[in-house]
């Protein structure tokens, strides 16, 4: 039976700030009313916790990266659909060395990062780009909230993180960004994921969310109201407008539904996800006693899939974004 009320969790990240702003600006209510449903947008301060809560069934949707969508809910048996592909990181994540200018200097150092996050993935990609492997460095798990003060500590020499912490650290005279996500464009993807079963039973939810999202993005670009919207988002994320604009520059937001659809339907996404699942499998993120990387199946628009087709748990679905592109909402 269709439900009337839904819960969506978000956490602070430049590519997700449209959600709280939409709530504030009444866009959420507008689209909810249109489809006769109510959508609650809830902020979770700790990103991992928001995904865990979604996985445990407390939320119907959550803002999540492609890799975490695979390793937490999908690997945990919760069939998840990436309903909206909002942006990819185009320099929002980076590797920083203290007092060293080349990525190869990282060899033998301790690297502070949030282990098994997209930072870890970025690091792995960075290392392989210069012919190094993970065994050449040592990772130290460091909470993202504390990574800025971690940089200030004497013994910290290398770290990987994302914005806004990244630009905060990069402004230090000693800091040198030696690798960033613009070198692997389109691999770190930020999505809004929803529970597949809920979505199938309540197509209205999908329509409303997509409607909200692109409405808000349109507003952000409005020459008149856009600045006020961006300023409000900056405030909501605890930073200044200037800093927020800076972060936006390194984020490839798909401002129109058409862009998003074309990115999602591009076969390159399949290659990206193959890289991501290989990394996840190598780090045991798909489960400890998992034999190969195929256990969790991934479906893409059309008929393309990766892994076990009988156990599809992560779906990239462009249907609803397509409706927006076609103006059918």
């Amino acid at each position: 039976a269709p439900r009337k009320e839904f819960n969506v969790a978000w956490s602070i990240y430049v590519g997700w700030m449209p959600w709280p702003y939409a709530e504030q600006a009444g866009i959420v209510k507008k689209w909810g009313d249109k489809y006769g449903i109510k959508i609650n947008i809830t902020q979770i301060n700790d990103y991992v916790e928001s995904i865990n809560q979604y996985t445990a069934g407390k939320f119907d949707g959550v803002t999540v990266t492609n890799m975490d969508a695979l390793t937490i809910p999908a690997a945990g048996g919760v069939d998840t659909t990436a309903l909206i592909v909002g942006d990819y990181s185009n320099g929002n994540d980076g590797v920083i060395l203290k007092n060293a200018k080349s990525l190869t200097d990282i060899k033998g150092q301790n690297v502070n990062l949030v282990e098994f996050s997209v930072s870890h993935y970025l690091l792995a990609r960075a290392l392989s780009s210069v012919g190094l492997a993970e065994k050449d460095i040592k990772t130290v798990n460091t909470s993202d909230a504390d990574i800025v003060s971690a940089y200030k500590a004497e013994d910290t020499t290398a770290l990987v993180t994302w914005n806004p912490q990244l630009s905060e650290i990069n402004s230090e005279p000693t800091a040198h960004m030696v690798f960033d996500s613009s070198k692997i464009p389109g691999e770190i993807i930020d999505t809004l994921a929803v529970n597949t079963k809920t979505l199938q039973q309540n197509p209205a939810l999908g329509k409303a969310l997509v409607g909200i999202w692109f409405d808000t993005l349109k507003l952000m670009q409005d020459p008149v109201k856009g600045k006020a919207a961006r300023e409000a988002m900056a405030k909501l994320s605890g930073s200044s407008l200037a800093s927020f604009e800076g972060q936006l520059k390194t984020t490839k937001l798909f401002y129109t539904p058409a862009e998003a659809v074309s990115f999602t339907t591009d076969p390159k996404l399949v290659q990206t996800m193959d890289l991501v699942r290989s990394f996840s499998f190598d780090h045991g993120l798909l489960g400890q006693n998992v034999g190969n990387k195929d256990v969790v199946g991934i479906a893409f628009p059309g008929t393309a899939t990766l892994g076990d087709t009988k156990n599809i748990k992560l779906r990239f679905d462009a249907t609803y974004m397509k409706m927006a592109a076609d103006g059918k909402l």
Partner: protein
Amino acid sequence: MRRVMNMQPGRARWLLALLPFALIVMVYVVGSAQRRAENPSDKVLPPFGEMSSAIHRVAFEEDKRTGEYLFWSDTGASLERLAIGLSIATALALVLGLLIGLLPIGNAMFAPMTAVMSMIPPMAILPILFIVFGLGELSKVVLIIVGVAPCLMRDLVFTVGSLPREQLVKAQSLGASTWQVLIRVALPQALPRLIASLRLALGPAFLFLISAEAISADSGLGYRIFLLRRYLAMDTILPYVAWITLLAFLMDLALAQLSRRAFPWAHGAEPKA
């Protein structure tokens, strides 16, 4: 020369008390100036002037959009959670503490359980708490409860358990039922001790509050601190920490006063007998 242990500070008491504080302030001012000299935009040790203007901004200027004064709405949200958490923890501790402390059967049933429970580090089961109790206000309150109730309870069990047997026998010889012994003998004598333990629990309660707010919240003192940490905005974080400390201090004072007013018998001189 008298022995050091016989020397009384006398009038110099205030001076001596201020000395360590003055020292810390001085070290801070010097350190701050030094870092600023090296890096004019250093954020780690902002000078007092910057802190005060940062606090002025959040405490006395309306937030343009929401019309709220962030500092006060954060304080309000945190204090509310704290109050609810501590009230429930106290009530729970009181009921279980009296049962375990007074009744041999209650003791047999709940004492081992609560002993084990109190050893579980609440932080480690945070993920579980969030899953069981959701991410709303409830889970924050529950973390405070899980964190402080065992301590409060253990203190109560001890207090009630060490009431002289004579008193319990005397009460029965005056016709008291178990229930009456509970509410007229055990409970009133446990209350001053409960307030004393509550004072000790203030520190941990704030700790758990802040930890819970760090993970899931959209307002509150702990939320703000962890949010600003990403930008290392020490000019706001440090005053927030000082404010939390002051709040804890004032609550401690208020509880001490309450106990002295409400239970004069527990604060009098030693019995003369």
